[in-house]
């Protein structure tokens, strides 16, 4: 008998293949030509535009929107990609509501920003649909750089270095590249295998050799890389997770959200991904929302996010919170996990006292066939000898680590938010610094 949302326990295929496909379609369908022109016309072409400053990659947003408005989306794409080679993915996954669109003067004026993210997608899609790469690689310099991690930071770094004529070897621990774009972000934000398509397109610049399935510390050493290359960039992300130290944390059905999402992302139609009838997600960040929403989209009957602090402290943006609520996810605040038992998950009510979070003594037990832990990722597998600060690889403004000749960027490196777009900026800027060093 096929399962449905009410099937007890864990079950795959709670919804039909068609319903799951529909649920995981584009969160924002692409703009058509006319809609793009209308949206572009709303841009005021601000002087020294605030949106540019708010973009971690400093894309010239007014210029690219004007290029769309005048019928040259390919030129718009080049404006975008010259600053952010993963502009296509960022157009899909950037929390624009807390970046460019938050400071759009239209937001100030009427509470409705120019839809910069969707316009960026319109432009980059137009260019990528032509299959052309807008940049030409400089003549080979004969210098070699190792880039470890084929996520957003590593890809941006590798592309910029290749562009400058350096020979790049790109390593990744997994069997394919893309990093969180491929394994992490919510499926409905980049459907249609976009992460792989973009990866292939980025590699189209040439001069980048990929070595997948090679992990630092597992046959690959920093010393070895340094010996064979003129520079090394580390974009290894946050491969570890915070441990949930409560009773029952090892029970069946308890899993790290990032692992569950990664498995789901790799499933072609997701009908084989088991999800609980009653799902509780622990945490309050983007990963918690992504896990909860996707559990709901797979047909879970009840999905709850339990966050230990209040709504104002929740790292997931109001947009993400509303998205979760609109899909039927229940958001619980001031609820800290205490134990996982056969009856479900025990949550302790909390409150802030003198700036400290304390438990009130009251507890609630929610039925939970599946508990997804989304309480933060941690640096893991960083090479010995690097200075670590605040759990991350210490870097200066140019991305240089404490070891000469080694740069780092993205989530693994100190500074900036853990966002795709920030990782791209850091990878790109480190590449520029490496280039400066190699050509000095």
């Amino acid at each position, binding site marked *: 008998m096929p399962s449905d949302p009410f099937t007890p326990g864990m079950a795959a295929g709670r919804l039909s293949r068609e319903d799951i496909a529909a649920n995981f379609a584009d969160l924002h369908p692409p703009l058509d030509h*006319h809609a793009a*022109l*209308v949206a*572009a*016309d709303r841009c*005021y*072409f*601000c*002087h*020294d*535009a*605030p949106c540019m400053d708010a973009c971690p990659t400093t894309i010239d947003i007014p210029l690219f929107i004007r290029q769309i*408005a005048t019928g040259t989306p390919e030129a718009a794409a080049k404006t975008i990609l010259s600053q952010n080679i993963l502009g296509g993915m960022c157009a899909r996954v950037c929390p624009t509501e807390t970046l460019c669109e938050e400071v759009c*003067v*239209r937001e*100030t*004026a009427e509470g409705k920003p120019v839809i910069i993210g969707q316009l960026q997608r319109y432009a980059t899609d137009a260019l990528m649909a032509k299959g052309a790469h807008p940049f030409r690689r400089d003549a080979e310099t004969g210098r070699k750089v190792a880039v470890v991690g084929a996520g957003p930071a590593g890809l941006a770094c590798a592309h910029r270095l290749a562009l400058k004529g350096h020979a790049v070897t790109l390593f990744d621990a997994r069997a394919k590249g893309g990093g969180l774009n491929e394994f992490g972000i919510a499926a409905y934000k980049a459907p249609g295998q976009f992460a792989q398509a973009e990866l292939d397109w980025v590699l189209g610049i040439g001069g980048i050799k990929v070595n997948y399935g090679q992990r630092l510390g597992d046959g690959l050493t920093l010393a070895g890389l340094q010996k064979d290359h003129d520079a090394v960039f580390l974009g290894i992300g946050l491969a570890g997770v915070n441990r949930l130290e409560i009773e029952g944390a090892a029970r069946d059905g308890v899993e790290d959200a990032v692992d569950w999402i990664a498995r789901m992302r790799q499933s072609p139609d997701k009908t084989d991904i088991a999800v609980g009838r009653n799902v509780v997600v622990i945490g309050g960040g983007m990963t918690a929302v992504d896990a909860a929403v996707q559990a709901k989209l797979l047909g879970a009957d009840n999905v709850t996010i339990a966050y230990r602090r209040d709504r104002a402290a929740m790292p997931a943006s109001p947009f993400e919170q509303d998205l979760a609520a609109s899909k039927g996810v229940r958001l619980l605040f001031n609820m800290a996990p205490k134990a996982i038992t056969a009856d479900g998950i025990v949550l302790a009510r909390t409150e802030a006292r003198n700036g400290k979070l304390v438990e009130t003594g009251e507890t609630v037990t929610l039925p939970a066939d599946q508990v997804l832990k989304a309480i933060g990722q941690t640096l893991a597998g960083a090479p010995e000898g690097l200075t670590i600060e605040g759990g991350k690889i210490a870097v200066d403004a140019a991305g240089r680590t404490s070891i000469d000749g080694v740069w780092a960027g993205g989530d693994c490196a100190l500074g900036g938010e853990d966002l795709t777009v920030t990782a791209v900026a850091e990878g790109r800027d480190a590449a520029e610094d490496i280039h400066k060093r190699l050509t000095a």
Partner: protein
Amino acid sequence: MADLTTTFIGIKSPNPFWLASAPPTDKEYNVRRAFEAGWGGVVWKTLGEAGPPIVNVNGPRYGAIWGADRRLLGLNNIELITDRPLEVNLEEITRVKKDYPDRAVVVSLMVPCEEGPWRDIVRKVEDTGADGVELNFGCPHGMAERGMGSAVGQVPEYIQMVTEWVKKYSDLPCIVKLTPNITNILYPAEAAMRGGADAVSLINTINSITSVNLDTFAPEPTIDGVGAHGGYCGPAVKPIALNMVAEIARNPATAGLPISGIGGVTTWRDAAEFIALGAGNVQVCTAAMTYGFKIVQEMISGLSQWMDEHGHESVESIVGRSVPKVKNWQDLNLNYVTKAVIDQSACIKCGRCFAACEDTSHQAITMSDDRVFEVDDAECVACNLCVNVCPVDNCITMKELGQGEVDPRTGQKVAPYANWTTHPNNPAAKAAE
């Protein structure tokens, strides 16, 4: 409620909104629909001579200019005068006028520049019971190549001559429709007046190419790979029309000559502006062609509301109200000093005022690190560009300095009225009294 009825050169209509001579008034079917929708009158699409009818192109007749949401801003046409037999039009005009005695039915005419054809056609129109005639001296395309339309309208002597013929053979009220494709609208207007015209109507369409297709390099609208200039109309031409109407209204020789205002009238507000500048009524075409006849309902309700709110009891009472306020540049007060003022609470910090002033004007707006934009009165010449480029209504306004106040730009106190005619820099200045 305000009284919208008008009597224009003796022709009564329930409101001042007429449909101009154009495709919307080419047939009985359309005109009946227009009257049912509430239009006060029509100028029937231009009739030509009896005989083989005019032919039109069988490709596009129109080209357009659009805003971002394909809002039609300007329309260009290469359609000629009616391409239906004269007799059919005359029969339809007769029937329609009989069924709508309270509406204005004026018939537009264009025949060769000879006395006989004009005599014949006006007599035929008289038999229809129509209220008047409008002489089409304006069409800039096609017919002009055959010595008609704007080819006549560009020669004041011809205007006068034809108008005299029409007045000689008919007692019908006669409107002369003027082309804007001339250097000075007063010459044709005065010629029409000399010829005995009861009124002028303007503007007809402006010579134009709407765009060039950059794949084929052909102008739009394109007929079989090439194009010919057409006549431009719609909202884009309104400022040009307003000026020409005002020029005639304030010209001593033509002052008091009734004017039917035409050119981009799209809303009640446009109509009120034409009337204030001296038009006794307005004619509409592009707005109807864009949105259909129903728009007249907004024009009627809007004009009524505005008149009620301002105590204007009749259309007549607002005709020409702005005319005394239209002056020559030399009459403007050079001692009228204003400064731009930015309302910081309304400012959305787009910086367009700064870019405009800094790059293209007088460097009179400063920008702080946190995007506060302020006017430097010592540099501001009050050009108004910042007001014009600001996307927020009333965020930037111009504040007048009172007499005796010091203008920080010049260091001089604001003096009483004085204009260029007495300015010391004017070599032709008359000595101040």
